[in-house]
C-alpha cells in the first residue's frame, strides 16, 4: 500500500534517503532550502520507486501528499516574505505606487458598496425595531454592525475579488512569460519588488478602505434615518458612537489588517508560482480569489471569537 504524506520518511530506507538529500545541499543555501529540497526529492524518489513497483496509488493519498507539500510551500513562502520584508533595501517608491493602485483605484467600488450596505442594513433593521418602539437604537445598531463586522468584511470581499485577482493574474502572467525569471537573472530581486511591495501595500490599504467603508456606510444609514426619523447629524453621530468602544475599533482594524495581508499574500503566492501558460494565469487569478475569501471567513471567525473573550 502507498504510504501517504511524509510518513514514509519514518521507514529506514526513506529516512536514509532523506538525510542523504539533506546533506546534498550546503548550509550556504539556508536550512529551509535544504529541508525543502530534501522533502521534494524524497517524495519524487518515492513516486519513482512506487511507479517501478507498479503499486496501486490511492487518489486520496496523492491528494494528501499534494496538500502537505502545498502547505509546506505556503509556509516557506510566508517565511521568505517576512524575512525579505524586514531586510533592506526597501522599495518605498513601488510600495507607494501599489498603495495607489490598491487603495485609490478601489475607492469608487468601496464607496458604492459601503453606501448601499449602510442604506440596506438600515432599511432591513427598521421594521424589527419599530415593533419594539426602539427606532432610536438604529444609529448605534448600524454603527456596531458596520464598524465591528460589515465594513472590514465587505471591504475585504470586494478587494479579494478586485485586488486579489488582479495581483494573481498580473504576477501569473509575468511568471508564464518569463518576466519574473528575467528579473531574477538580472539580479533585480523580483520577490522584493513584486511580492513584498504588494503585500505591504494591501496590508496598509485594506484597513484604510475598511474605515472609509464604515464612514460611507454610516453616511448612507444617516440619509435613510434622516429621511424617516428626521434625526439630526449630530444626534446620529452621538448615538452611533455611544456603543462603540476602543475594542470595537481595534478589532475592526485588526481584522482589516489580517484581511489585507491575506489578500496580498494569497494573490502573490498564487501568481508568483503560476505555471502551465495562460491556463495557469486564469487558475492563479481564480484560486487567489477563492482562497482569499475562504481564509477571510476563517480569520473573521477566529478574531471575533478572540475579541469576545476580551470583551
Amino acid at each position, binding site marked *: 500500500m502507498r504510504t501517504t504524506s511524509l510518513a514514509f520518511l519514518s521507514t529506514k530506507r526513506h529516512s536514509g534517503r532523506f538525510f542523504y538529500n539533506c546533506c546534498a545541499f*550546503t548550509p550556504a*543555501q539556508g536550512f529551509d532550502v535544504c529541508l525543502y529540497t530534501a522533502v521534494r526529492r524524497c517524495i519524487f524518489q518515492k*513516486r519513482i520507486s512506487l511507479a517501478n513497483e507498479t503499486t496501486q496509488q490511492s487518489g486520496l493519498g496523492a491528494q494528501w501528499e499534494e496538500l502537505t507539500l502545498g502547505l509546506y510551500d505556503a509556509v516557506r513562502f510566508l517565511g521568505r516574505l517576512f524575512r525579505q520584508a524586514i531586510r533592506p533595501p526597501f522599495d518605498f517608491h513601488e510600495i507607494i505606487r501599489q498603495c495607489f493602485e490598491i487603495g485609490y483605484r478601489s475607492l469608487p467600488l468601496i464607496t458604492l458598496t459601503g453606501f448601499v450596505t449602510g442604506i440596506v442594513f438600515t432599511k432591513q433593521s427598521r421594521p424589527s425595531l419599530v415593533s419594539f418602539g426602539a427606532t432610536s437604537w438604529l444609529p448605534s445598531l448600524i454603527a456596531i454592525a458596520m464598524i465591528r463586522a460589515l465594513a472590514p468584511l465587505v471591504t475585504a470581499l470586494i478587494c479579494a475579488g478586485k485586488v486579489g485577482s488582479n495581483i494573481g493574474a498580473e504576477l501569473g502572467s509575468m511568471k508564464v512569460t518569463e518576466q519574473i*525569471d528575467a*528579473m*531574477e537573472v538580472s539580479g533585480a*530581486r523580483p520577490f522584493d*519588488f513584486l511580492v513584498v511591495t504588494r503585500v505591504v501595500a494591501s496590508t496598509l490599504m485594506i484597513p484604510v478602505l475598511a474605515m472609509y467603508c464604515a464612514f460611507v456606510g454610516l453616511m448612507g444609514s444617516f440619509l435613510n434615518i434622516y429621511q424617516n426619523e428626521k434625526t439630526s447629524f449630530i444626534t446620529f453621530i452621538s448615538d452611533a458612537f455611544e456603543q462603540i468602544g476602543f475594542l470595537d475599533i481595534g478589532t475592526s482594524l485588526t481584522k482589516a489588517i489580517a484581511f489585507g495581508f491575506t489578500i496580498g499574500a494569497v494573490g502573490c503566492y498564487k501568481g508568483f508560482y503560476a505555471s502551465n501558460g495562460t491556463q495557469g494565469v486564469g487558475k492563479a487569478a481564480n484560486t487567489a480569489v477563492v482562497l482569499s475569501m475562504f481564509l477571510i471567513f476563517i480569520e473573521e471567525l477566529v478574531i471575533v471569537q478572540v475579541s469576545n473573550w476580551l470583551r
Partner: protein
Amino acid sequence: MAYAHQIDYAQRVIDIRGLYKSFGPLKVLQGVDLDVFKGENVVVLGRSGTGKSVLIKIIAGLLPPDAGTVNVLGRHVSELSEEELRMLRLKLGFSFQNSALYDSMSIRENLEFPVSRNMPGMSKTALDDLVKETLDAVGLLNKIDRMPSELSGGQRKRIGIARTLMLKPEIMLYDEPTAGLDPVTSVEINNLINEVQERYNTSAIIITHDLACAKATGDRLVMLFEGKVAKAGSFKEVFASDDPEVQKFYNYNFIQ
C-alpha cells in the same frame, strides 16, 4: 561569418560536469559535460525536448540540478547563497526565447530597471546616457519611448539583448535567439550576437536548432541528443559525422 575575436583557452568561464536533471519521470539531462572558454561562443544544438533551455537555466541558477557540478566564473552555482547567486547573475546576460520584456514598462524603463535595481546610486543623466548608448548598439534608439507591444518580434529580441547588456555581462546565454523570426531578421540577430561578442568581449552559450544561426555565431558546436552530448567540435567537424541523428538534423535544416 563570425567576427574576429580572441578566445582564451586557458580560462574556463563555464565548467559543467556530469549534469543530470529530470522532471518527474522525464529524464532531460543525463550526464552533460560542457566547457566554455573566455571569449568563446558555444552553440548548443539539439531537437526540441533535449534539455537545451534547461541547461542554460541551470547555469543561471533558475533551476537546481539533480546531480553534477556547474561552475560559472569559478563559483559552484548550487553552493551559492541567495545573495552570492544574485551577484554572480550580474555577470550573466540571459536573452529569453520570447524576449521576456516587461509589458507594463516602456523600452526606456525596461533597460533602466536592472541598473536602477542593482546600482541605485547611479545618476539619472548617467543612466539615460547608458540606455541611449545600449539602444544605439542594437540599432533601436528611435524606439526608446515605445511600449514592448508596439515592437516586432525581431525588435523585441534586440531590446531583450540590449537589456541584458545594460549590466555589462561577462557571459551571455541566448535561448533560441532566432526562433520565430524571418531569415533576414535572423541574420540581423546573428550579426548582433557577434557584435556583442566583439564589442563587450563576452563568452556565450547560444541555444538553437537553427543551423544558419549556429554556423554564423558559433566558435564551437555541441550537439545534445537524449540528454547527452552526442557531438562537439567546429561546425564542419560535427556535421562530418556519419551519426544518423546528426545527419538527419543537418538535412532537415538545410533542405529548407
